[in-house]
């Protein structure tokens, strides 16, 4: 930037107008603009809006993955082959409960605060507690840079996380209270919602919130006649050159001991039989994941409160 140009600072909305202050070496000039409806990021000096990711200018098309044969990371198609998962509870000391999950390159962490008094007194429910969920992506988590402002995708995922967790938590045991679940996606390498559900239920268990059962998530991607379980980011987002009927993704949140589905979300286009088969596959994937999660939880509990030594 040339030396004599001004620096534009914008401050938060004050009494209905957006006030921009332009400082230059000579004088300070105040501009008042009309408030705009879109939420803008007032804390950072943004670069020009026309910036683009260089991946758009790649020579060969990025989405030319084969739909047969083994997958890029060596797992099998058409089999319940989930990525090996690393989980740890109790990483954030300030939170009541927390959990971190890594599956392949997907990294998420979740913190639970509560039960505590409801912030907004007019929303206090006398008979049962409230569960609020918030799922955010770090801007550097996806191959394309996202913004810090919560887009509609974040809100949508937060809502689905809420719907998946609500049946499992014994909210009637926490009247007039609020339990907050915050999930932060550090790296998005596919099936983010499924792992967020698992991570959140682990964090709730770590916080000592009473639950009926752990909620586990699993997702598949249907591609023509074959499917892949626990897809990576490239597997999820590629547009297949073969424009066949069955193309879509499905995420299921499942309570294994109670055999109940607490969350289901699918998009793309699939035949009804494919959808049914996909749900069954996801349930199998959840059963595979269950022992690992249980072990991690037991380990965390033993670490926090070691059993009395036999003497």
């Amino acid at each position: 930037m040339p030396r004599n140009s001004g620096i534009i600072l914008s401050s938060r909305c004050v009494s209905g107008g957006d006030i921009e202050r332009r400082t230059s070496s000579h004088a300070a000039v105040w501009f008042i603009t009309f408030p705009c409806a879109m939420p803008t990021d007032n804390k950072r000096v943004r670069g020009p809006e026309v910036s683009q990711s260089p991946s758009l200018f790649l020579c060969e098309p990025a989405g030319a993955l084969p739909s047969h044969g083994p997958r890029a990371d060596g797992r099998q198609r058409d089999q319940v082959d989930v990525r090996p998962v690393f989980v740890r509870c109790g990483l954030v000391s300030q939170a009541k409960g927390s959990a971190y999950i890594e599956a392949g390159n997907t990294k998420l962490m979740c913190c639970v605060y509560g039960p505590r008094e409801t912030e907004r007194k007019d929303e206090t429910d006398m008979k049962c507690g409230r569960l609020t969920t918030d799922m955010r992506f770090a801007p550097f988590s996806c191959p394309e840079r996202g913004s810090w402002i919560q887009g509609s995708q974040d809100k949508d995922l937060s809502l689905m996380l809420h719907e998946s967790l609500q049946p499992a938590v014994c909210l009637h045991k926490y009247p007039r209270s609020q339990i907050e679940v915050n999930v932060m996606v550090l790296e998005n390498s596919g099936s983010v919602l499924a792992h967020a559900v698992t991570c959140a239920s682990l964090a709730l268990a770590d916080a000592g919130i009473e639950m009926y059962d752990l909620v586990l998530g699993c997702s598949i991607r249907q591609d023509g006649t074959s499917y892949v379980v626990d897809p990576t980011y490239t597997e999820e987002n590629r547009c297949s050159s073969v424009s066949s009927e069955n193309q879509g993704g499905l995420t299921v949140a499942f309570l294994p001991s109670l055999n109940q589905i607490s969350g289901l979300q699918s998009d793309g286009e699939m035949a009804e039989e494919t959808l049914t088969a996909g749900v069954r596959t996801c349930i199998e994937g959840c059963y595979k994941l269950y022992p690992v999660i249980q072990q991690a939880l037991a380990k965390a509990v033993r670490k926090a409160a070691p059993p009395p030594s036999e003497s």
Partner: protein
Amino acid sequence: MATVQVSEAEKVYILHGIRDDLRVDGRGCEDYRHMEIETDVVSNTDGSAKVTLGHTVVLVGIKTEIGKPRPMLPDEGYLEFFVDCSANATPEFEGRGGEELGTELSNTLYKVFNNKHSVDLKSLCISAGEHCWVLYVDVLLLQCDGNLYDAISVAIKAALFNTKIPRVHISADEEGGKEIELSDDPYDCMRLNVENMPCIVTLCKVGHRHVVDATLQEKACSVASLIIAVTHKGTVTCARKVGGGSLDPESIFEMTEAGKRVGKALHAPLMKLLQQEESLGKTQQKVGFLG
């Protein structure tokens, strides 16, 4: 969603009725309420439709604009959905109250149309990488009596059937830049093929059975619902569980099958009705909002 308070005795009454396949207003478990559809109600739009399903009234207006295509898909146009819950429907929607419900509805609509076959996006391209048609689908909820997804999807299908996209002509001007010319004839327009557009069916789990087109009272007795978007061929474009309860896998399979059956049966009469209305042309008696 606008909710009603239902007493325990009323809940038991509704539950027992549904168990015997008899709902409070006399319908069977898979019957819709009386539905009225009218297209071309708002003259400022390029396509519009109003749907009345029982006491739920939804108005959809479609405006076509020329915009820049998305960087990753340079030879396709796109649709933008926006759902506005008007404060007329219920006082809960005043100010920003209806925003949450509106975003939930718009996000589901994006998912429903997020596939290659529902709308032919390539026909919306004007010149690859530079200009394309953007269809802004704006949904307005005027009255809310349950079953918003179904009414909205039928209204969108009717409005897109009614949409007239003007034909454009690209010509090169003197400096070598491209110039867009709109045809002078107002009837020279392109229509969209809505055959493959899905319709949403909401199935509410009440007791051990599921009901289609639940009223607000029936919704208050259910803990979970399944939303399923079905095309006329029976393909499922979006399935989603809503509500704070959990469902048995067997119920989900039953509900998807019922949803597919009901959804498939909805398309043929709807297309017939839309074509009939279209063929009336000028002789069509407009009912508007006062009928």
